[in-house]
């Protein structure tokens, strides 16, 4: 699939990402160089565990049928069979010990690979906020709501969070890393297949934690650059209410505010312009340019009655052009 067809499909289809069908029973498809390595350990453990469990279950079943008592009245007791056997105890301590050492070493090597980004990897910033992932690309001023990467390229994602803990999780890549407010974490991968794959938030973050989804778009060679330059051009040229509409989708506004009148986590934007809204803690405010601006910069300052203070601040994340665009967009939603 070319990236253009993926993007076209995304534009027409609903926004839910899809986990592609997998050739494996337990695991989703493998789309990174890391995946094969960690799946090998997983499969080895699955088979090893199945054998161990089957042996124990068989022993239980066998003993219960073979040595089942006839009745209590028969008053049988076990003969003086063994009650202790040091050689056996040592055997079944040592064998698991060696298995564990092997697994530890395998897991350690894999982990060091996962946690050590190769030098010269392409860098993309990811920010977790309630309840949207935002991705910032080199040369692009506004963040995007999907992760676009080229295939067969080392990519390092530098992650942080603005409000509470989140965790960037891409099952097809077998990578996950917590997003922690106040510090940076990172992960890296090299995608081996093109396509559209789900991104989840894996650390509980409140009301819409389970809707904090995004798409990982892996582009064929050359098309990532085309996508990036087109997006940069578009981001600079769009103004006014169209800019507001674009930001509404990409900055996470749509997670909490609808444009059709139904209240969600926050009030709907439809028809809110010019309305007088009652505030938590008394008083009322007319929704005008200044109120919208204040709500973006200092969201907890005035909360519309009936809603919770859940919105993160957009201070420093929106340009003047962006704020104007959002105001124009809200105005247009009559």
């Amino acid at each position, binding site marked *: 699939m070319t990236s253009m067809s993926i993007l076209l499909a995304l534009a027409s289809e609903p926004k839910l990402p*899809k*986990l592609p069908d997998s050739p494996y029973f*337990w695991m*989703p498809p493998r789309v990174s160089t*890391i995946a094969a390595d960690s799946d090998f*350990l*997983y499969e080895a453990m699955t088979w090893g*565990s199945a054998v161990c469990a089957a042996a*124990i279950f068989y022993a*239980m079943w066998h003993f*219960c049928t073979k*040595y*089942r*008592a006839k009745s209590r*009245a028969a*008053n049988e007791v*076990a003969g003086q069979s*063994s009650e*202790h056997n040091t050689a056996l*105890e040592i055997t*079944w*301590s040592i064998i698991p*010990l060696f298995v*564990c*050492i092997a*697994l*530890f070493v*395998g*897991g*350690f*090597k894999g*982990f*060091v*690979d*996962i*946690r050590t980004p190769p030098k010269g990897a392409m860098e993309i910033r990811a920010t977790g906020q309630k309840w949207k992932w935002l991705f910032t690309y080199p040369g692009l001023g506004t963040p995007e709501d999907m992760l676009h990467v080229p295939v067969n390229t080392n990519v390092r994602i530098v992650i942080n969070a603005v409000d509470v*803990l989140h*965790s960037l*999780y891409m099952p097809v890549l*077998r*990578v*996950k*890393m*917590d997003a*922690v*407010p*106040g*510090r940076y*974490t990172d992960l890296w991968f090299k995608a081996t297949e093109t396509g559209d794959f*789900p991104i989840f938030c*894996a*650390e*509980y*973050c*409140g009301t*819409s*934690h*389970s*809707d904090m989804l995004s798409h990982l778009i892996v582009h064929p060679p050359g098309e990532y650059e085309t996508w990036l330059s087109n997006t940069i051009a578009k981001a600079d040229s769009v103004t006014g209410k169209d800019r507001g509409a674009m930001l509404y989708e990409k900055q996470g506004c749509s997670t909490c505010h609808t444009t059709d009148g139904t209240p969600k986590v926050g009030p709907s934007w439809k028809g809110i312009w010019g309305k007088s809204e009652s505030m938590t803690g008394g008083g009322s405010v007319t929704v005008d340019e200044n109120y919208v601006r204040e709500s973006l910069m200092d969201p907890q300052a005035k909360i519309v009655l009936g809603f919770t*203070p859940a919105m993160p601040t957009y201070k420093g994340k929106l340009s003047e052009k962006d704020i104007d665009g959002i105001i124009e967009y809200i105005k247009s939603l009559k």
Partner: protein
Amino acid sequence: MASPSTTADAVAPRSSPGDDNYLTHDKGIASWAFTLDHKRIGVMYLISVLCAFALGGTFALILRTELLTPGHTIIDHDTYNQMFTLHGAIMVFLVIIPGIPAALGNIILPLQLGAKDVAFPRLNLASYYLWITGAVLMLTSLAINAVDTGWTFYTPYSTTTSTAVVPAAFGAFVLGFSSIFTGLNFIVTIHKLRPPGMTWFRMPLFVWALYSTALIQVLATPVIGITLLMMIVERTLHIGIFDPALGGDPVLFQHFFWFYSHPAVYIMVVPAFGVIGDIIPVFSRKKIFGYKFIAVSSLAIAFLGFLVWGHHMFVSGQSVLAGTIFSAITFLIAIPTAIKVFNWTATMYKGVIHLDTPMLYALAFLWVFTIGGLTGVFLAVMSVDVHLTDTYFVVAHFHYVMMGGAITALMGGLHYWWPKAFGRMYDEKMGRLGAILVFIGLNVTFFPQFILGSRGMPRRYYNYLPEFQHLHMLSTFGAYTLGAGFLLTAYFLAKSLKHGKIAPANPWGGTTLEWQCPSPPPYYNFTKTPVVTQGPYDGYENLVYDEKIGGYLPRPNKAEA
């Protein structure tokens, strides 16, 4: 031996010990509310814990029903989040931690030691009222605006959400003291109140397990106490400790939290090992295999359990070196755990096996704990854990260990000691049916969750991708089966209290001391302090089954016969 006077209102024991037991010794609510008798405190704990279990279980069924379909099924986002938080907090702090030690342990431990009570009866009663206080605080949170942080109370979410975090966290703080009191009491009781002849290696495995557990309770619980207090201080007074907005560090909270909560996993499951260690030999009519290995492995697990908390944090931003050390020590715990499973299984070899309800629960325990233990190894392998952590794989793993391990053992112990505690037999057929329903329900509920998690389904999700729906539906039907099993059990156990057959002193043919006193035990347990001359699982050949009473009696001397 040291036998402290256990009650302020001591009354002369009545003439016939059969009629006078701890249940009938005093009458009236005050005689229960102010009792210092370990058995009565144990019974009050048992009733309270089972009520909390019913509440936490009801939440679980609502959650599973919600997960029948993606998106809205019966409740909204926020209600779901509040409910999984309360499900977790109730099950951990109110049910599993006090379940076996405080409820069953209180009733049985002094009996197994041939003692008249625990070392500090007043501390014991205080522990119970702290439990009640903690439970009331948790319910206060439910009444105001139920906490929605998850039972882990991770900052900065917990210090910024608008729900009633403080009462719930303070409840957990108070419950911690309840747990410390029980642990302290048991340590002293086991050291000081053992009967003549009971050396350390003649203690029943249940006593060993409670001892190991008590050590963890006393040493680890203060850390969660101070952590939750710091979180409350940050939330109410805005003193920056964990919240980066105030200059704190959220990963520090995770370290503090798991420093307690990983050892707490062993507070929950080590007592279960003890119950299983007591049931299997009695129902196999055979001495336990590898007694010393099982006893000492409990201590080893208790000790190592303190050094592995960081394995919950491989992707938290913790350093690679720290993760590596935690992973290595985690693997070490697998060894004593495996030793236990092998020894329990080997005990049945060439035994004479009676498949009564307690034994069915013990077998169910072996099955689910084997799966729970093996899947723990997956999570200890760091590179694999990166994919599996915070998914349903973890949910399945800890439910196999906590629900499958701790609760199955609690049910096994409950059925095993029920005749001793209440003097009545339950309907054995119903008991077996209940055990089978619970076993099937458990596996159908939680096994599909391993598949869900491996395929990438994150935990604590209200909504999910449609590709996951079939497995979620299967899991929900399993939960209904589980619910049916527990309802049936509640019904026949309650019924037995009035209509059950009178229980003999020793229905299963156990040789530990609790089976030497009548059922239910008299107020002072033993008229004469028993003297121990053999190991806890010796002497099955000296017991004879008597059909008339439905229990075992000492074998008459050949000379007399």
